[in-house]
């Protein structure tokens, strides 16, 4: 037991270190900053696995040792307990010497008194054994204490195993799905942060999630109320199985996966045409960066369209304002207003020409590019990107003061056009597979039950002896409790009263209450 406690203490110590130092799985950027600021300690910590405490070999080692120590401790204890359960209570002789002792006369012969005493004790859930001479009863209660303690410890072990298997064979990652699109569970479809367990087979289910609609609701104060993704779930062959709604605090289970609402954002449909061909057509996932004030909803969405096939290469960076009314209010008041509705959305675009260094759509490296033009494009417009003027589309409800330069009549056909036909939303779902969650829950429930049983039950022993005297039968009752002695002090007189009532005792009492427990 002491070894297990020391190991548990080591786990606690390691966890404390893990909570104080930045951890690679949670905040890799802070680990990087630490390495730059404290090169010596940083390197030392990195080598020792202190930046990934919970995934380090020594954390696993301590867990494994704890496991071994628990098993080594629990097997003999469980055997002893099984033996103790099968064993019959042992008879006692000197009942007067027990902490609680009472003797009184009863109206019935000794055999009958013993018989009735057994019945009383059984009714009180005692395990009962009659003495070989038929004149005494030994009774015990409180197996629950050791049973509960063992349940607790075995369940703790089960929890440990279930957690290791679940985290080891499962995976978790994030999926970005634009309204109307379908996402399939495969390693390369995750957002680049897929975390797989150590013993994972690398197999994914191939199940599909089709986003029908995303809905966000806000209070007037801009505090979010609810986010919900209405999805259609597809099996591995692409056949629709059922429709469901993924909401905050309401995950959806499907095909061994758990799907959680994680984030959301804007995804305008952007069409780029040039030289009579469509160069790019589809939703652009916009990222809103929370500024210094942390108000993410007030920030414009940022996204990119890259055209690497053109010579020279082109890229368009886009800045989306979904709610121009709130945007204008922000400009006037100087206080960023959250943009939670779609009101005359528009985008500011910048056309870049040069060499694209990074093909990913998360950012744009403009070191080898130069700015060609900038302008705005409202929903439903088509613009000449190179000249920054509007080819078609009405100003609609766009606020006054936003420059809208119409291309001059009779100008040559634009080489590159950009259209913004539609504004959609995307949802970010967390997709996790953890096959042992039910076992973890079951083990947790057993831990709790075992704990309460072990703490709030107590072992009690009671003996009854009936002796024939010249004037009748004298019944002696003695007992003691190994734990919770104050409770037994209250219980014992009630037990005696029951025995007395059952045996017709009480006449000419000779009661000598034993000294209370020290």
């Amino acid at each position: 037991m002491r070894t297990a406690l020391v190991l548990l203490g080591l786990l606690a110590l390691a966890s404390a270190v893990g909570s104080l130092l930045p951890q690679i799985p949670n905040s890799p950027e802070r680990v990087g900053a630490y390495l730059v600021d404290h090169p010596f300690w940083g390197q030392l910590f990195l080598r020792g696995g202190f930046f990934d405490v919970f995934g380090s070999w020594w954390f696993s080692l301590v867990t494994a040792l704890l496991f071994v120590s628990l098993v080594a401790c629990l097997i003999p204890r469980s055997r002893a307990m099984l033996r103790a359960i099968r064993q019959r209570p042992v008879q006692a002789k000197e009942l007067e010497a027990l902490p609680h002792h009472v003797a009184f006369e009863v109206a019935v012969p000794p055999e009958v008194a013993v018989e009735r005493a057994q019945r009383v004790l059984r009714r009180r859930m005692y395990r009962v054994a009659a003495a070989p001479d038929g004149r005494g009863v030994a009774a015990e209660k409180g197996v629950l204490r050791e049973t509960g303690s063992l349940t607790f410890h075995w369940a703790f072990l089960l929890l440990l195993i279930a957690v290791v298997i679940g985290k080891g064979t499962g995976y978790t990652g994030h999926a970005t799905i634009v309204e109307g699109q379908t996402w399939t569970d495969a390693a390369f479809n995750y957002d680049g942060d897929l975390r797989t367990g150590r013993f994972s087979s690398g197999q994914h289910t191939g199940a599909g999630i089709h986003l029908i609609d995303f809905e966000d609701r806000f209070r007037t104060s801009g505090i979010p109320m609810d986010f919900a993704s209405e999805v259609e779930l597809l099996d591995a062959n692409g056949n629709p199985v059922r429709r469901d709604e993924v909401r905050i605090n309401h995950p959806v289970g499907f095909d061994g996966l758990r799907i959680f609402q994680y984030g959301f954002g804007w995804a305008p449909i952007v069409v780029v045409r040039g030289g009579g061909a469509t160069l790019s057509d589809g939703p652009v996932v916009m990222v809103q960066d929370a500024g210094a004030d942390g108000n993410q909803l007030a920030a414009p969405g940022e996204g990119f369209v890259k055209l690497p096939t053109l010579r020279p290469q082109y890229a368009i960076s886009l800045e989306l304002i979904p709610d121009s009314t709130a945007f204008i209010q922000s400009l006037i008041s100087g206080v960023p207003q959250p943009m939670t509705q779609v009101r005359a959305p528009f985008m500011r675009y910048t056309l870049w020409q040069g060499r694209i260094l990074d093909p990913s759509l998360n950012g744009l490296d403009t070191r080898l590019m130069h700015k060609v033009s900038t302008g705005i494009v409202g929903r439903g417009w088509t613009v000449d990107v190179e000249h920054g003027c509007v080819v078609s589309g009405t100003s609609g409800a766009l606020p006054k003061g936003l420059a809208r330069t119409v291309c001059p009549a009779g100008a040559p056909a634009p080489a590159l056009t950009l259209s913004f036909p539609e504004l959609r939303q995307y949802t970010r779902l967390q997709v996790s597979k953890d096959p042992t969650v039910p076992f973890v829950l079951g083990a947790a429930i057993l831990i709790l039950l075992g704990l309460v049983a072990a703490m709030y039950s107590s072992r009690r022993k009671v003996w009854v002896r009936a002796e024939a005297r010249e004037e009748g039968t004298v019944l002696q009752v003695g007992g003691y409790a190994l734990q919770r002695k104050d409770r037994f002090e209250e219980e014992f007189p009630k037990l005696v009263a029951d025995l007395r009532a059952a045996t017709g005792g009480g006449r000419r009492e000779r009661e000598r209450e034993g000294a209370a427990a020290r």
Partner: protein
Amino acid sequence: MTAARLSSDLFNAALFAYIAAMVLSFAYLAFRKRPFHVAALTVGWIGVSANIGSIVARGVAAHRTPWGNMYEFSSLLACLVVLAYLVLVEGRYKVQTVGGFVFAFAIFTMALATSFFYVGPTDLLPALNSYWRQIHVTSMIVATSLLATGCVFTILYLVKVRSERREVSVLRSQDPPPILGGSVDADAPPDYVPGADEPVGAATSPAPRRGLPPSATLDRLAYRFIQFGFPIWTFGVMCGAIWAQQTWGRYWGWDPKETWSFITWVIFACYLHARATAGWRGTKAAGIALVGFVSLFVTYYAVNLWIAGLHTYAK
């Protein structure tokens, strides 16, 4: 008067009542005059009523159960600690001299709440909108209040053990009284408690002396509170894990708050084991409980103030 205003007025009233009750309790501890004790209890109950009133008014003002941020947790924690003291220690165990320390703890908690954590009654983020929040937070605060009360008694126990040891060593240095014909049995250390489960009241029966109750009584009180609080803490952590599974998609992610609640759990588990192990009872076990106390406070305050994590919304 709005409910929000009423809530903060009652909060202040409770805080002042606790301060008065603390002073009166310490006066009783020092002078052993009955009226001090009666007055302390009366003012203590007034404080608890005001505290409960403040919490209810806060709930009315915010249209939700009023335990959603650190200010609200702290108010509830102070209320439960004082309530546990008044009902269990005074009512059930009939120990009357330790109230001042419990009130001091409640004052400390509430003062921190008003000076560092105050926020107006506002709506919660949707992630907090779950009935698991109610169960998780309620049981965590109840457990925190019980464990913290147990730890207050542990500190008092250690203080008392020191003074008892000093008495023993004074007796030992004197010549043995001739009538006893031998030395005072100074080899049985006063921290040796043969039966941890014996009734708390049993040790209080010796003639009342000035100062704290005997160390054995304080030790048992500490044990009772920690034993009561530990399963509730376990339950609260488990509910938190269930809620985390629903909201964040994992039941355990080594978030600082999770990590520290686990550390606290381990330390108090060690305390309970130490209590059941010969040679570790008494001051050694009390030492473990003190470490648990520190860990409890790291879990409760430090994680929110200094360590970034998912529980930062509870600021």
